[in-house]
């Protein structure tokens, strides 16, 4: 199961890098979105994937899923959500002001 997840995470990461390289503003925003998914999956996978047990610790439980990564990933998802919302607004404003979403044209000239 961990091996499968590792491969999935690798694929998501490579798609992310591909999108980061593109010239389109929105694709870069999409890349950050995918990147957050990739790292959240990694965070869950790295703690070991336990199946069929509840993430609650009692002293006589024989098996339980580690609850900490789930708490961490929840926090990380909320943060990623906020950042994505902000980034979308920023890219919309950038598009409105500069009338372009081509990053090549948003490079800024050398004399500034």
């Amino acid at each position, binding site marked *: 199961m961990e091996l499968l997840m590792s491969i999935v995470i690798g694929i998501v990461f490579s798609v992310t890098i591909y999108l980061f390289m593109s010239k389109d503003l929105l694709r870069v925003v999409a890349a950050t979105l995918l990147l957050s998914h990739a790292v959240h999956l990694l965070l869950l996978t*790295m703690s070991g994937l336990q199946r069929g047990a509840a993430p609650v610790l009692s002293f006589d439980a024989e098996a339980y899923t580690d609850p900490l990564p789930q708490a961490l990933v929840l926090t990380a998802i909320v943060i990623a959500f906020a950042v994505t919302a902000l980034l979308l607004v920023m890219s919309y404003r950038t598009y409105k002001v500069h009338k372009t979403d081509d990053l090549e044209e948003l490079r800024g000239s050398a004399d500034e």
Partner: protein
Amino acid sequence: MSNVIILPVIIPFIIGAILILLYKRHTIQRVISGITMLALLALSVYLAIYVYQHGTLVLEVGDWEAPFGIVIVADLLSTLMLLLSTLVGTVCLFFAFQTIARDREKQFFYPLYLFLMIGVNGSFLTGDLFNLFVFFEVMLIASYGLIVHGGTGYQLRESFKYVIINIFASALFIVGIAWIYSITGTMNMAHIAQRVSELDQTGALNIVAIMLFIVFASKGALFPLYFWLPKSYYGPPAAIAALFGGLLTKVGIYAIIRTFTVIFNHDTGFTHKGLIVTVAGFTMLFGVLGAVSQFDFKRILSYHIISQVGYMVMGLGIFTPLAVAGAIYYIAHHMIVKTALFLFAGATQKITGTTDLKKMGGLIGTHPWLAWLFFITAISLAGIPPLSGFFSKFPIILAGFEEQQYVISAVALLVGLLTLFSMMKIFSYAFWGKQKHTAAQAKIPVGKLLLPILPLVALTIILGFAAEPIFTYSMEVAEDIMNPTNYIESVLKE
């Protein structure tokens, strides 16, 4: 008593939330935020003195015991950084009162400002790696808001790059956290440190160390991850640029110092003397070369942030108590002086309406106070005795020669020389020479603008003349963090 150490996080949070509701009434916002920052400053002075006298304070949030819950730790280094950050925050806020345009002020400027302070203070105080990530994000989201504040075309374009590089670095931070959790099974920094020393820092742990170094290096603008800094710090108004220049990169440097003294201190030949020293050398050199090639007040200062961040990590890389003490002294000096210089850039911009050095000149004739205060700060930055720049660079370079790190020490000396050159370039272009601003501009009074900067200029002089007690203090901080068992024992209570 230990409950007090969470106040620097809670106070700006509550006040910032209240200020959102009052966003239309800018006078009330000014008064409340000004009082809040002064209160925070007083609180952090009190905390610094208390921790110096009574030792490290630890708060287990929600009364969850140490390795399981989040801990807030105030040791000597955290309280020193807290003191510096609130000082810079207060000064920039009072400068902002006079320079931020009225319509910008109404766009949630003060709430964002206080939220930034939550993130910065929290990052300095937390003893939990994931909590550090959360506070980093709080700080960064507030900084995204402040850096585009006003929404000019230039700001939007450059801030987009700033946001993207920071999102990428934050994602790598989670990767680093995931790896370290899979190896050590804990998030508490003291507990991680204990486990790492039991595991022996080899193989995968070194990879995690480098991963976290990359993350903090891109927030702290180290070579080769500094390219976002000069352009994005150019856009926002002077008060915000000064706040960012003084504070934000130093949070990254603090995180490097914390992780590489408490956790990853077992393979110093590779991580410290190899990786960090090399990176520090390139950072100093490329930063100062960038500054030398520029002809813009703010841009020169931005490039100098990069070169000076190099000195701090160089002190950490050499990793003797003397060098680390020098690095800590240097952080204090740099935060004070760099903020002051950015604010001077703002004051000259208010007079001349530009930051282009070629369009300035002769300010010393019309505004002598501004010119001479700038001169004191500039030579302090370049490291002329008896100001603070000299006494903070001296121990770092001395330790470099003692440890036979001749190349890096030579680079540091050369960078000092080039710093002096580019500071003199600003002085001779902007302040000497023929007057290039109009007679109307010459009458613009800057006395009130200089008032908030005066404490900073006074501090750089005091840090220089009172070098002995302050260096003794930095030495104590350095010995405290070089010996992480103190930190680990006070957190885990063994």
